[in-house]
């Protein structure tokens, strides 16, 4: 039974006692490190947010500028996830099903957005979509502006989350048995029907998990977006940037309130992704 490659490694409980030494030392170091580096700052943020008080928190979060930034962020992240759902699925399909020159290179290229710093990605996209840029110049003739507009935010978010859908769908597609498709074909089903009725349902949980991961990543993206967005309040100001601006204004209550809301949103997305992955694991077990 293959474990889905994108899932958190779930460890089964093994009853036997280990004879290997170093348990206390390794666990102690790991817990100390996690406590100092990961949990301490998260705890400090929660404390600071609790200090803000409920009424003030609601006032900050429902202020028009904050609401507008959430609307901009959610809409652009959803569009970026939509792009990656389609492109990522097609890219995974091409990498698994077809042989062509340069396939290995294409497979390696998929990881570029994870390896490339977000600031560099933002700088590159801004250059591409500038008025005299490779993409910006032809688009300007059609009257389309991407840089310093919401479309630019979508491009930045889409770029930085390209690998998620590809890397979640790819292994599931690889593991698919050809017999199922052949059975469909034998019964006279068309390619489209086989894809719709057999292939897509099999990869759907992985596809959904990948798309959710891409969406979650886009919600928190900062580096790539600030270069290209233009950062106008109410139009192209994302939540992460508004947090940054509130800090620069020394408005720590607002920064804490917005940051803790982003943290909550990240936790909700984490729960959704984990639920989808658990569902997917059930799928994988059913096959075996």
């Amino acid at each position, binding site marked *: 039974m293959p474990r889905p490659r994108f899932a958190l490694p779930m*460890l089964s409980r093994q009853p036997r006692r280990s004879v290997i030494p170093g348990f206390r030392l*390794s666990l102690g170091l790991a817990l100390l490190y996690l406590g100092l580096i990961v949990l301490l700052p998260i705890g400090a*943020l929660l404390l600071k947010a609790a200090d803000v008080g409920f009424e003030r928190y609601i006032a900050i979060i429902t202020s028009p500028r904050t609401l507008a930034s959430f609307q901009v962020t959610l809409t652009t992240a959803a569009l970026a996830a939509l792009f990656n759902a389609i492109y990522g699925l097609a890219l995974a399909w*091409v990498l698994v099903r077809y042989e062509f020159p340069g396939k290995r290179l294409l497979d390696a290229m998929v990881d*570029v957005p994870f390896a490339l710093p977000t600031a560099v990605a933002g700088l590159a996209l801004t250059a591409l979509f500038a008025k005299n840029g490779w993409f910006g110049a032809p688009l300007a003739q059609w009257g389309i502006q991407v840089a310093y507009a919401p479309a630019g935010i979508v491009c930045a978010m889409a770029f930085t989350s390209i690998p998620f859908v590809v890397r979640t769908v790819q292994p599931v597609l690889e593991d698919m048995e050809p017999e199922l498709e052949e059975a469909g074909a*034998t019964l006279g089903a068309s390619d489209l029907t086989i894809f719709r009725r057999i292939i897509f349902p099999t990869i759907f949980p992985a596809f959904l998990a990948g798309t959710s991961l891409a969406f979650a990543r886009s919600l928190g993206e900062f580096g790539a977006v600030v270069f290209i967005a233009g950062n106008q309040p109410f139009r192209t100001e994302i939540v992460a940037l508004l947090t940054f601006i509130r800090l620069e204004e020394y408005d720590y209550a607002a920064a804490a309130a917005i940051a803790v809301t*982003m943290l909550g949103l990240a936790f909700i*997305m984490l729960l959704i992704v984990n639920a989808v992955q658990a569902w997917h694991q059930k799928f994988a077990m059913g096959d075996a």
Partner: protein
Amino acid sequence: MARPVNRHRLRVGDGAVTRSVILTLVLATTGLALIAPLAVIFAEAFARGVPTYLEALARPDTLHAVGLTLLTALICVPLNTAFGIAAAWAVTKFSFRGRNLLLAVAELPFSISPIVAGVAYLFVYGAQGLFGPFLQAHDIKIMFAVPAIILASLFVTAPFVLRELVPLMMAQGRDEEEAAVSLGASGFDVLRLVTLPNVKFALLYGAALCNARVMGEFGAVSIVSGNIRGQTSTLPLQIELLYQDSHAVAAFAAATVLAGVALFTLVAKYLIERAERARGEIVAPRRPGH
């Protein structure tokens, strides 16, 4: 009448038209979405020739940013590698309650926006933070200085080595370590002579990814560094400063350094995976994430 099943029959999407349409669309999108952004960095950096590029790269503030970025990586990568080894050892060689919780907490930095991480660190070490009064009373400067840059970088890259090691060490089990212990090897000898050689490629790959991310971290570092020019600018922050000051060539020249690190990391990944396959060892399942 059912058609006979032919071993060589075409699978779904293998028709000549479908195949060429899908392949063309995907390759064209890849060219626009992945290759063009990478190409434009080098095109802009070398737009006015190699001498101008080298001159732009040799600016004192850029060189200082390179130095600070190297220092951060030199501290963060070994620390997160050590943490990854210790945590992976605890989680895969022993059974205890809360192992999955430990892994989930270790993976949190992947789900949290770097901006949130930066704000959180400010509320620990900043003047209005948890330890702010204590640090001020003892004249210890962490926030808006190099220590904060290092701490924030440690946060965002904490899971990198761990997540490469855990699936592989799980798959390899404990038999070899138990055999070594029964032959009288000490814990550190087992780690050095048995466990680490078995996972050396995953370890290298995790460290390479950790390094690339430390060098490229922008959001968290831009909050905690204070972005003091010539003092606390790492390379990604320096790129933003140069760009804002309309020093386009200098910004792109600095970006080529980080793009080079990214490309080097991908080449390393490719070589490591090839070496793993060649040795026919258990290949760790790779999960996406950042």
